[in-house]
């Protein structure tokens, strides 16, 4: 009886894992396979294998757009905003979770409200603000906007983690005479490593694919980011799915490789700090 129960459980676990892998890999595989198909094949037989390896999409994508330059732009904009963002939100989240001061709840609620504003309501005011600050068509402008986009989730996540950290460690640090900064830096941040890496991952990936603001806030090639390349191939009367998907592959492949490579380190850093319970 117990054995049967156990077998059922294992089946359930593997079923879940199978679904996750299937759901997760289907789009990537589809994009990858389709990028080697002609438009004809993509539209007429969307899920079959290509009859021959069509490289026209890649040729088109690489000839029309300076992919390496855009990749570099994306990398700069996304990494800088992620690093700055996670740093400042960790600081704010720490204070909001662990310190007591007047107006704490209100400040947190106000910060979190940035998550609640519908995206469409953000477009025009942010555009105006960027123009006024002279940040239109600059990388700095995009970086600032992307820092902002990471705010609600990072803040939320990090605060929740800091709330869960045991008080004793902080108190012990205080007894040892550690000041505010040192407690934050050498006690709290290491504890929150898993949440820090999660919010960095989420922020990086969220902004890596951002299109709407990148399209509005840049006007010259020197500031254009990688995802805009896809816009190149789906216009009102022209469509080139082969080239679009090829561009997409060129856009996502580096991220996937870097992610797979870094992932072990990220996960190991997570496992380092078992502190709850």
């Amino acid at each position, binding site marked *: 009886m117990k054995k049967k129960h156990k077998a059922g459980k294992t089946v359930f676990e593997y079923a879940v894992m199978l679904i996750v892998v299937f759901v997760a890999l289907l789009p990537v595989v589809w994009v990858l396979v389709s990028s080697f198909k002609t438009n004809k094949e993509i539209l007429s037989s969307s899920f079959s294998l290509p009859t021959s390896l069509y490289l026209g999409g890649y040729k088109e994508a690489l000839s029309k757009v300076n992919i390496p330059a855009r990749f570099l732009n994306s990398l700069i904009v996304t990494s800088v905003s992620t690093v700055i963002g996670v740093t400042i939100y960790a600081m704010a989240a720490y204070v909001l979770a662990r310190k007591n001061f007047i107006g704490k709840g209100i400040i947190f609620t106000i910060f979190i409200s940035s998550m609640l504003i519908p995206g469409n*309501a953000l477009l025009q005011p942010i555009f105006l603000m960027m123009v006024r600050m002279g940040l239109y068509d600059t990388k700095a402008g995009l970086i600032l906007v992307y820092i902002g986009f990471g705010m609600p989730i990072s803040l939320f996540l990090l605060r929740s983690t800091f709330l869960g950290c045991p008080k004793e460690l902080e108190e012990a640090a205080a007894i040892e005479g550690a000041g505010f900064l040192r407690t934050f830096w050498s006690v709290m941040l290491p504890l929150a490593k898993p949440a820090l890496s999660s919010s960095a991952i989420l922020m990086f990936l969220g902004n890596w694919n951002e299109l709407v603001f990148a399209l509005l806030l840049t006007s010259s090639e020197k500031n254009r980011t990688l995802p805009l390349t896809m816009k190149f191939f789906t216009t009102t009367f022209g469509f080139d799915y082969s080239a679009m998907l090829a561009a997409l592959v060129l856009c996502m492949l580096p991220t996937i490789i870097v992610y797979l490579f870094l992932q072990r380190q990220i996960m190991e850093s997570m496992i380092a700090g078992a502190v709850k319970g």
Partner: protein
Amino acid sequence: MRKNSTSTKIWIILFLIPTAAVFCLLFAVPLFTTVVSSFTKWNGMEPMKFVGLDNYIKIFQSKDFLTALKNTLIWAAAAAFIHVPFGVIVSLVLFRKRKGWKFVRSSFMIPNMISKTALALMFTFIFKPDVGILNSFLRGIGLEKWTHNWLQEEATALFSITNIWLWYAALITLITFSELTMISSGLAESAKIDGATDLQIDLLIYLPLLKRIIGTGVVIAVVGVFKEFETIFITTNGGPGNATMNLAMMMYNRIMNSSQYGYANALGVLLLLLSIGVLVICNKLFAMDKED
């Protein structure tokens, strides 16, 4: 409550300033404009004209509003009761580290690296009426009469669109998994020695400790679907009729197609209120403000 020393006070302020600055630069003005303009007639260019509650009254009278609200709430429920639990279950299953779990761990995040446009494009090919893979499959197993123009028939459209995002819960899995790694393994091990099954450990030890992060996940997911219109925009635009309309899509239409910023922002305020409601409920339900 211990009093903060002066230096601590200064540090608190210093730690809050950067975030406050970003908030003021990017979100303060939009938030203010959204709320204020919802009581005005405004085309985004000329000065606002105060009209009181006009926009709200018009919204409540509009033929699309009830459907849009209903769909918005259906999505919120789907996010809270299917999307988030699925993500949590995945992280718990992963955490048992069965054979092959590393492969799953490496792949579950990958869909987030693909743009939504490409994802929606793929799903339109899945749901296409003639050569779509879903219909081909149904025909293949002899269920010809179950085939549909999935995205364009009133009965199936909302269901189909929901499936485009419902199972992509990588965010939830990621944050709960990272929270799980912070839980000391001692608890689970001693419970195991006492004869607890895996299921009991999950339900009685892990879930209570994950409460706060699950609450966070619910808020993020629900507020996310409140604002979601891209998936709809790419696939059905809210149709057929208004079968897949939601409040965010309505808002987008009013800004883009008729420059009714006042009206659109009134919808925005309604979304804001809904989101605050969710936030408050989750705060209570998951005791999200409490320290451990």
